[in-house]
């Protein structure tokens, strides 16, 4: 906490704060909890639409799906904890995002992970990659929520600072919606779940709110250990509480633990609260008031209950074999009073912890190195297309991700129509003919070259990914992973990314309903690439009888490219990275009008076409290769210039279908080849046998992880 911040606490209270009070303000006013550097910019996001039930600000965004169904979604980062301890860092990240979603009254039905590491030739990066995937699997599988997709990127800029983001989707009936409110005076606060220990004291504030090198081992909070079994019981207990209408409001205990779970619900309801720390069930002895208030022990929830339902609530907890204790009472007026050992240790305006948090309008400056990058256009591709393609397929970010997602239960709940390995995941909503499509996308390299264009393109790409399953874009959550916000160039990248996301959302007419900001992602003073990650939810209504799938191509089918003609601009493409190892030039800008048109077209075609695949990483060539591998059929692509084969210019689709079975608008479609045979031939270059394609693609990650 800075001196000015301390001064404003003194001003607020009209006296010097007690230790416990100081602890509460320091965690609640941390970057992670207060968004003090980002708030001014986040206001830019479009957040409204008729189908938005709950926008940003609550634990998760909620949108209306019709038929009485609502979807709750949220995305979170656990970057720094995952660097300290990859397994537990990732595991507790999953636990946290689940709580954000079932706090809203929803049953979590699916998870997506977006993970970024340094190159796999460095053993430390392999260790982190392995640990993070094991942690997501270990927690997600055991808690019983399928991980049905995600995203993977490798780049030097993540070597000292991997990114671990997790998105969760929940479903609930309209009447089950619960908010994080304490409700009326005399309501009772019941703490459910794990005992409180000294876990991650100040973890959120320390780890996620300061440059990582500053937080040397001694300053680091003790690692938190996830307990998926406790969380599973907590989920079932809470869902029963909601079903039976036993709670007024619920707040999860995440960052800032009890401080947040008491002050925020009280603040939202404009009430105060008496909290008795002696009632809190603890794992360790001798915990001080500040420790109890700051502890980030996992798998805990705070339920606000009207006094006459308390016994029923405790009975539900007992049935599910979790602990439940009464720790507080809602009071009129706005004062949060905390007692420990019978003494008052804190007495503060509840709302002030959230509402009066500092807000910084940090200086912005466009990095001058951008000019140098833009003035050096991407080099052209000289190698022959077949050789380039094989090198791309061997890249761990472009090859098969089966090594990752086969460690995740991605089929639980019998809803996964399309799981990991395709474009978007497609989940049916049983009892309706609707399905939900989700795509998560990020691209640090593109955003380094142009954060505004890059961020906008992410959104359009995600929209196309969901459209090819027959879904129309509905809502967005975003996870903004950036460097040190005290650097004007980083804040500029941040502002530009927010701008890009906002423009794209406006073009598609969809709102941002939630998100998360992670700053101070840097190591040895080097900031990571600006890495906004977005999760886009789409609704397919009705779901196509047979949704398009990469595996449905057959001998003799025609291959069409849909969308604007690409340019040869390779700035920020996978080909530029893998073949030249460069990062220069300026990425092609998205075309909002064209984007909406192609997205709409795709959503319609999805009902008629066996294979519809968005052309993105690796361009047309890689898209075709993915179809060949999944369908086990060869293909021949007619004369397309090499640079165009690997162009990643936006708003393009690959469509494969029987000749004459579909008519496409000819201003945005062209025949580029035909399926058939045992080899893939790109523009007359050396044919690649299917077996070679598959071997290289399948081994891209395993061959690196096994040494």
């Amino acid at each position, binding site marked *: 906490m800075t001196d000015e911040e301390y001064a404003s606490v003194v001003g607020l209270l009209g006296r010097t704060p007690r230790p416990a009070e100081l602890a509460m303000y320091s965690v609640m006013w941390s970057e992670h909890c207060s968004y003090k550097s980002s708030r001014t910019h986040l206001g830019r996001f479009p957040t409204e639409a008729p189908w938005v039930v709950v926008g940003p600000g609550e634990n998760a965004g909620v949108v209306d799906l019709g038929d009485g169904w609502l979807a709750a979604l949220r995305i979170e980062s656990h970057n720094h904890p995952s660097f300290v301890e990859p397994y537990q860092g990732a595991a507790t990240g999953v636990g946290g995002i689940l709580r954000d979603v079932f706090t809203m009254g929803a049953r979590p039905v699916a998870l997506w992970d977006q993970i970024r590491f340094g190159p796999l030739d460095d053993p430390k990066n392999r260790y982190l990659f392995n640990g993070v995937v094991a942690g997501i699997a270990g927690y997600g599988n*055991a808690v*019983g929520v399928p991980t049905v997709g995600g995203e993977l990127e490798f780049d030097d800029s993540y070597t000292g600072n991997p990114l671990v983001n997790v998105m969760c989707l929940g479903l609930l009936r309209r009447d089950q919606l619960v908010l994080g409110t304490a409700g009326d005076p005399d309501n009772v606060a019941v703490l459910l779940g794990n005992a409180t220990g000294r876990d991650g004291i100040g973890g959120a504030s320390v780890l996620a709110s300061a440059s990582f090198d500053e937080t040397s081992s001694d300053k680091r909070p003790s690692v938190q250990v996830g307990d*998926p*079994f406790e969380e599973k019981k907590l989920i079932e207990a809470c869902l029963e509480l909601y079903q039976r209408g036993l709670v007024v409001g619920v707040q999860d205990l995440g960052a800032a633990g009890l401080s947040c779970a008491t002050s925020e619900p009280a603040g939202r309801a404009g009430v105060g609260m008496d909290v008795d720390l002696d009632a809190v069930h603890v794992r360790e002895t001798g915990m001080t008031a500040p420790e109890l208030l700051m502890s980030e022990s996992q798998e805990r929830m705070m339920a606000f209950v009207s006094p006459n339902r308390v016994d029923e609530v405790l009975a539900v907890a007992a049935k599910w074999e979790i602990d439940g204790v009464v720790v507080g009472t809602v009071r009129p007026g706005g004062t949060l009073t905390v007692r420990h050992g019978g003494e008052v240790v804190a007495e503060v305006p509840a709302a002030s912890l959230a509402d009066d948090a500092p807000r910084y309008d940090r200086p912005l400056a466009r990095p001058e190195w951008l000019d140098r990058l833009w003035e050096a256009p991407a080099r052209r591709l000289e190698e022959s297309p077949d050789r380039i393609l094989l090198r791309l397929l061997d890249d761990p970010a472009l090859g098969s991700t089966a090594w990752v997602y086969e460690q995740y239960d991605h*089929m639980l709940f019998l809803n996964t129509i399309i799981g990991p390995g395709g474009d978007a995941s497609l989940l049916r909503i049983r009892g309706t003919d609707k399905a939900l499509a989700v795509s998560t996308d990020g691209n640090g390299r593109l955003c380094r070259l142009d954060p505004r264009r890059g961020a906008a393109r992410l959104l359009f790409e995600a929209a196309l990914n969901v459209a090819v399953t027959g879904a129309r874009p509905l809502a967005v959550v975003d996870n903004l992973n950036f460097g040190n916000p005290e650097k004007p160039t980083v804040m500029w990248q941040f502002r530009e990314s927010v701008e890009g996301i906002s423009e794209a959302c406006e073009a598609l007419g969809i709102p941002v309903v939630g998100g998360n900001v992670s700053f101070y992602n840097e190591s040895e003073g080097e900031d990571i690439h600006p890495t906004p990650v977005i999760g886009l939810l789409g609704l397919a209504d009705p779901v196509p009888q047979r949704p398009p799938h990469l595996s449905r191509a057959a001998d003799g089918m025609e291959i069409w490219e849909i969308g604007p003609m690409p340019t040869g601009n390779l700035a920020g493409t996978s080909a530029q990275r893998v073949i030249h190892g460069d990062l220069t030039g300026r990425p092609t800008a998205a075309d909002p009008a064209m984007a909406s048109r192609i997205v709409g077209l795709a959503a319609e075609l999805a009902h008629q076409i066996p294979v519809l695949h968005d052309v993105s990483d690796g361009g047309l060539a890689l898209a075709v290769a993915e179809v060949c591998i999944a369908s086990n059929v060869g293909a021949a692509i007619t004369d397309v210039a090499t640079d165009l084969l690997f162009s990643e210019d936006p708003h393009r689709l690959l469509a494969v279908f029987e000749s004459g079975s579909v008519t496409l608008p000819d201003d945005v479609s062209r025949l580029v080849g035909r399926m058939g045979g045992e080899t893939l031939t790109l523009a007359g270059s050396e044919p690649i046998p299917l077996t070679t394609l598959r071997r290289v693609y399948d081994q891209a990650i395993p061959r690196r992880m096994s040494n």
Partner: protein
Amino acid sequence: MRVAVVVFPGTNCELDVAHALRSLGGEAELVWHRETDLAGFDGVVLPGGFAHGDYLRTGAIARFSPVMGEVMRMAEEGRPVLGICNGFQILCESGLLPGALIANRDLAFICRFVELEVVDTGTVLTGAAEVGQRIKIPLNSYEGNWVDPTQSGRIALRYVDDPNGSQGSAAAVANDLGNVVGIMPHPERGTDELLGSVDGRILLEGFLRSLVPA
């Protein structure tokens, strides 16, 4: 014909199993692990998941749940008892099936479709299938590696291409009577065209057919 689908704390496939059985015309009811009376049920399924977090050993704590007394009784009475994945592990721990399940050979969780071959049709799970028949359903486990020092297990299904090191490539194992069966892959995940396979129906239909009124 009523089937009890037992729910332990940490179980997570109970809804899927109940849904699959019902979609095949079966009558399935969820039963909490503290239940001590399964009278009126003609068969029982222990579904997959992570009972008690798989702590200590997978299935080790669940086997002491109050409901297990009734599961034992039904097994002795020759009634159909099916354990899927974690349920298989619980049946081994409780001694209703021989052997035990240890970590996969490659120490990694495996979630993907696997191909099975029917070896023995004399069990309540394989009664509707034919010897040599191929069945494609999802595997989803970390401890799916079956070991049986006594060599007494009766293998009902085996992996065509052993993914986890299981002894005799066993994917499903039965007791001598054939009324108690444990299977590591998930038949309930293979009951819907939209989700990629309907091969699991052959197994669950066999199970439902084997039920005789209590």
